[in-house]
């Protein structure tokens, strides 16, 4: 590699900006764009989020107001394009409004767990020794439970409800994220730029936030994005078991539960809420896979 910078303190033509400056993330986006499936998945997710947010604009039906005379209408019925449920409520309205809670209950736990798990993991990896070892042993114990089971057991103790379901899933996801954060941190702390930051007299907090976090972000982000699919499935699963959202509230898992009795009458309508859970989950997993390649993260697999 030829160093083009001359020794004179006055910059010459050669040293002036030739290539536009672009950050690591500009390159990541370039790589991400190459994957058509991932772009489609991103589009699907954006569509779902927009539809959920704009639900009142997209349907005039009240998701809670049913009409017993028109219960279990099939797909394509005039006025009820996706049919009606067992109480005659419009399925499209319920699916749209239901998306809000289903997405919320799935994404919030991963978000919270990422913040807490990253804090635990980076501190463990940075401080090392005793604190790190103790924290990581605690994380290991939580690892001894299948995630969904631990969440179910926790909500069973705390009592059913969306808040408790979010809380339980958050706690369940902290240990794996902390582990990923810790191992990423261990790889970064030995780099000279961290030592350089310490030499500059920066506080530990500033070193972690400014220097360490941007570098451990990628593996954590990839891992967390992979958890979102699982989390949405799990959150709806808890509602399906009656541990999350309570019945009249539209939520995909709870809807599947209340519709299940009508499985012999209107099978396609019954399958709808689950279909949306499935599509959202697939989209997030595809996204996570592509992100893993685009961010060039190796060796972090879900569970």
């Amino acid at each position, binding site marked *: 590699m030829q160093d083009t910078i001359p020794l004179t303190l006055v910059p010459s033509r050669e040293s002036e900006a030739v290539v536009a400056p672009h950050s690591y993330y500009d390159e990541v986006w370039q790589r991400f764009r190459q994957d058509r499936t991932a772009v489609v998945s991103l589009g699907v997710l954006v569509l779902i989020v927009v539809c959920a947010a704009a639900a009142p604009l997209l349907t005039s039906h009240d998701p809670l107001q049913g009409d017993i005379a028109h219960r279990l209408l099939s797909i394509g019925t005039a006025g009820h394009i996706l049919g009606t449920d067992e109480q005659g409520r419009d399925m499209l309205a319920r699916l749209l409004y239901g998306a809000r809670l289903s997405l919320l209950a799935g994404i919030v736990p991963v978000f919270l767990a990422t913040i807490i798990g990253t804090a635990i993991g980076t501190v463990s990896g940075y401080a090392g020794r005793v604190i790190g070892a103790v924290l990581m*042993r*605690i994380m*290991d*114990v*939580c690892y*001894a*439970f*299948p*995630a*969904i*089971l*631990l969440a*179910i*057991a*926790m909500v*069973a*103790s*705390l*009592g059913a409800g969306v808040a408790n379901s979010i809380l339980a899933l958050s706690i369940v996801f902290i240990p794996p994220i902390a582990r990923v954060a810790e191992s990423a941190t261990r790889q970064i702390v030995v780099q000279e730029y961290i030592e350089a930051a310490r030499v500059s007299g920066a506080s530990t907090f500033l070193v972690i936030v400014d220097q360490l976090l941007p570098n451990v972000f990628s593996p954590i982000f990839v891992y967390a994005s992979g958890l979102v*699919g699982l989390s949405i*499935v799990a959150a*709806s*699963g808890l509602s*399906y*078991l*009656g*541990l999350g959202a309570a019945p009249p509230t539209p939520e995909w*898992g709870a809807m*599947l539960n209340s519709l*299940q009795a009508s*499985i*012999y009458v209107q*099978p396609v309508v*019954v*399958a709808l809420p*689950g*279909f949306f*859970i*499935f599509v959202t*989950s*697939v989209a*997030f*997993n*595809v996204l996570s*896979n592509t992100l893993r390649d685009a961010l060039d993260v190796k060796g972090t697999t*879900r*569970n």
Partner: protein
Amino acid sequence: MLAVIGKRLAMAVPSLFGVSIVIFLLLNVLPGDPLAGLLAPDATPADRAALAKQLGLDAPLPVQYVTWLTKLAHGDLGQSFSRQRPVAELVGTAFTNTLVLALAAAALGLTIGMTMGIIAALRTGSPVDQLISILSMMGLSVPSYWLAVLLIIIFSATLRWLPSAGMHGINGGTIDFLKHLIMPAIATSAVTVGMVAKTTRASLIETFGHDFVLTLRAKGLSGWRVLEHVVKNAAPPIMTMAGLQVGYLLGGSVLVETIFSWPGLGQLIFQSIQSRDLRVTQAAVLVIAVTFVLTNLAVDILQTLVNPQLRRAG
């Protein structure tokens, strides 16, 4: 090698203790009411206190924990209040049923997953490979409870081939038993299929890249004989995955068992939560978690026996 196995065994002990503490805390410290469901709705505070004392709930937490653990060591899991039967008996029966379902799902998932993985690895980049990777992605993402509902819609509601519920053990004959088993097993195994297919493919492709494969080819070995060697070398990560999957299958059974009324631990957990019989919930979760730890341990030890490199490393 014995030392290595001994070390792995020793490492499992703190895990098991940790598990018991977590489960104990779940019941005793979280703001749920451990007496809920045990008391009549019109119980007075005095009744509460009396019941708490009778159950030893007035003792300090560490004392309660030791008492609970001691009883546990003697196989005494207490009495189910909603069913008036020993918890150990309920959990024991359910465990057998869950194990049958988990093993069936594991067998199904491993066979299909490995087949898919091998085919994909042999045809990297082909449409078949792409189809398989789409399928495994779907397997990984599908909610087991929705797959269960789909299966019921197709095979019970529409085709009327298979029963959607009502497993009564082996009494109804082998055919009847298998008919009840097949849909829950498929629904549970979807994640395993996806996971195993992905791991198998990756592990095989990596092994194909090794020098020894080229040597074998240069020696003139037939394609099948080469594949045999490759599979042998690619086996360890697949084995680990398989072992872990058995554990997850046990844990992931709650939803599927509930849908198909499969009388296993999952359904027991669901029912005990509904009847607020937390003692049963606790025991069932404990059994699953312990099985999970032991499965991981078995996989570890098996790895040590198979992989000569791990045998030497301490």
